[in-house]
């Protein structure tokens, strides 16, 4: 096992962490699993690809989350709100359908090819880590995820809005009675969740490249992480993301056939043994 392998695992886990935090927020607040989260991630990556030319990587890193945040808001206004009185399963299925639509429209616009995206020039080299060289860009991903994680945590734990979000996730009716504007909160959470997906997509673009299958490919790992981490538990999702990222990447080196089943075994085990996930309340 080399440092590089371990760090690759952390990098993948970091991306997963950013993406799953958004999904966990949405799941916690609305109780719905947003199956289109992978498609939003994909949208972020493709928007990043499109903007890199004109705005450079850093510009793309700003534009992508903005665009996907808007998409998140559209999702809230166009889907979650009108279908508020339907069951969680039905709304989940609608997002499932939306994922298919969004992903196909993206391919119709940008084509079937894998699109390369260049990372920022300043981070193109390697950095010496414990004696061996490791791509600086991947360290940047890890660093970004760490900053986001801390920022998200502080926001949720310390700010008033964060408190409202946590309260509403626990008991939406009570929160509303106590004066929380749940609609406005949902809008905010969808925007933030979308932005996080956009950041993940933009960061992933130079690392994993931009291709039509990326939405579907990331969806199942993200779902697994959120479910295992616990309903709406952002901290749980973050932890699960790192564990999965590291575990899977390392395992792939040692025993690929077994490792590939790991996430599935994990989610099945957790759901059967503890339907609330490791840190959360109820899955339903």
């Amino acid at each position, binding site marked *: 096992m080399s440092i590089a392998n371990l760090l690759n695992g952390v990098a993948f886990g970091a991306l997963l962490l950013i993406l799953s935090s958004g999904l966990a927020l949405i799941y916690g607040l609305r*109780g*719905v*699993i947003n199956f289109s989260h992978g498609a939003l991630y994909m949208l972020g990556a493709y928007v990043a690809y499109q903007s890199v030319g004109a705005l450079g990587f850093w510009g793309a890193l700003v534009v992508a989350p903005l665009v996907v945040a808007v998409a998140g808001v559209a999702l809230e206004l166009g889907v979650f709100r*009108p*279908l*508020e*009185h*339907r*069951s*969680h*399963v*039905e*709304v*989940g*299925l*609608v997002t*499932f*359908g*939306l*994922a*298919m*639509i969004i*992903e*196909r*429209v993206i*391919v*119709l616009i940008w084509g*079937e090819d894998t699109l390369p995206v260049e990372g920022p020039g300043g981070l193109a080299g390697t950095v010496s880590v414990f004696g061996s060289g490791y791509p600086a860009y991947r360290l940047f991903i890890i660093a970004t995820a760490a900053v986001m994680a801390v920022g998200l945590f502080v926001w949720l734990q310390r700010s008033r809005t964060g408190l409202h979000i946590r309260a509403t996730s626990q008991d939406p009716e009570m929160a509303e009675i106590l004066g929380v504007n749940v609609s406005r909160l949902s809008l905010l959470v969808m925007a933030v969740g979308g932005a996080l997906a956009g950041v993940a997509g933009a960061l992933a673009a130079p690392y994993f490249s931009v291709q039509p299958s990326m939405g*579907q490919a990331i969806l*199942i790992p993200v*779902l*697994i992480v959120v*479910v295992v981490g616990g309903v709406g538990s952002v901290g749980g999702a973050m932890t699960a993301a790192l564990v999965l990222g590291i575990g899977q990447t390392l395992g792939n080196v040692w025993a*690929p*056939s077994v490792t*590939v*089943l790991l996430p*599935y*075994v994990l*989610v*099945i085990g957790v*759901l*059967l043994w503890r*339907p609330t996930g490791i840190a959360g309340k109820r*899955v*339903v």
Partner: protein
Amino acid sequence: MTTFSPPTEADQDPVPSGRPGARRGPRVSRRAWRAAAVVAVFVIGLGLPVVVSNPYYLGIATDGAVLGILALSIGFLASRCGLISLGHTTFFGLAAYTFAISTTNWGWAPLVAALFAVLVGSAVGALVGAAIVRTPGIGFLVLTLAIGQAFYQLSVQTALRPLTGTYDGIPIIYADGQTMLGRDQADMGDASQFWPIAWTVLIGFVVVVTLVTRSRFGRTIEAVRENEERARFSGLNTFTPRLLAFMLSATGASVAGVLFALKANYVSPNVFSFVTAGDSVIAALVGGWTTAVGPVIGAVLYVFGQSELGATGNLQLFTGIALVVTIAFLRTGIVGALTSLWSLARRVLLTRRTR
């Protein structure tokens, strides 16, 4: 948001008339009429190749029938039990692969292999069902998804190449001279030859599902779906009925898997894919899973769409749109929408006549 309670027959018919078959009156003759109708439909259907000689459309009908069995299995579970499974590909694929492996790798007679494959699929269905039927709502959905995709991963693992052929799959080869129901291997791939088999099994499964739904057992699982806790408080052990319903559903999916392998003479990991899992649920839902016929219609439409749009790659787009539109507006699916239109038309015509 409320717990999932799928639209039932009561939602379709604005005048609630209780469970079909529970009407008082001359029950015998009504049942006899219905049985006669089923036989008639069956016999007429058998003659499809005579009327439709175009192999393209015949192929769609045949593939639609096979997928229809899978869709109906899913639809039955969803509408009667309130359990939506994104993992029925598990049994579909497992049965298909079992058939392929036992004929091609082990040289078994196709009929024996087919029965064995259904058995394997059903047995796994029992095991999976026992483990997961107690998990409610979204948890069940994610569990079925995880299990199905785990099997997909197994089917593409290089370590299992000798058994599964990984991404290349298994071209099915019967042992020398073997036939299946009087047809040799080449015939099976011919839609006009395969059609009677597919049609017979489809009608058989539709009849079974309908009978089960209208039986006392059907009412029991409906009660469990409507209010599981109350059912327990009424003295029912709710685990067993759900498990049995799940097993019936898994068996249906296994039968569909075997038929699929039989016709295609080839299995690949696609039978386990995420796309197949999702699309089969969508077909059932869009067709209208409160009836037995709805999922079959949805399946035929899907197969048709697949043939027409496959090359353009836009199938996914239209499937997604169909799903969203159905859940948002046509809650009882195409069949439900048509039924409502029909009732509406009938009422309009009747009021006109009485004026």
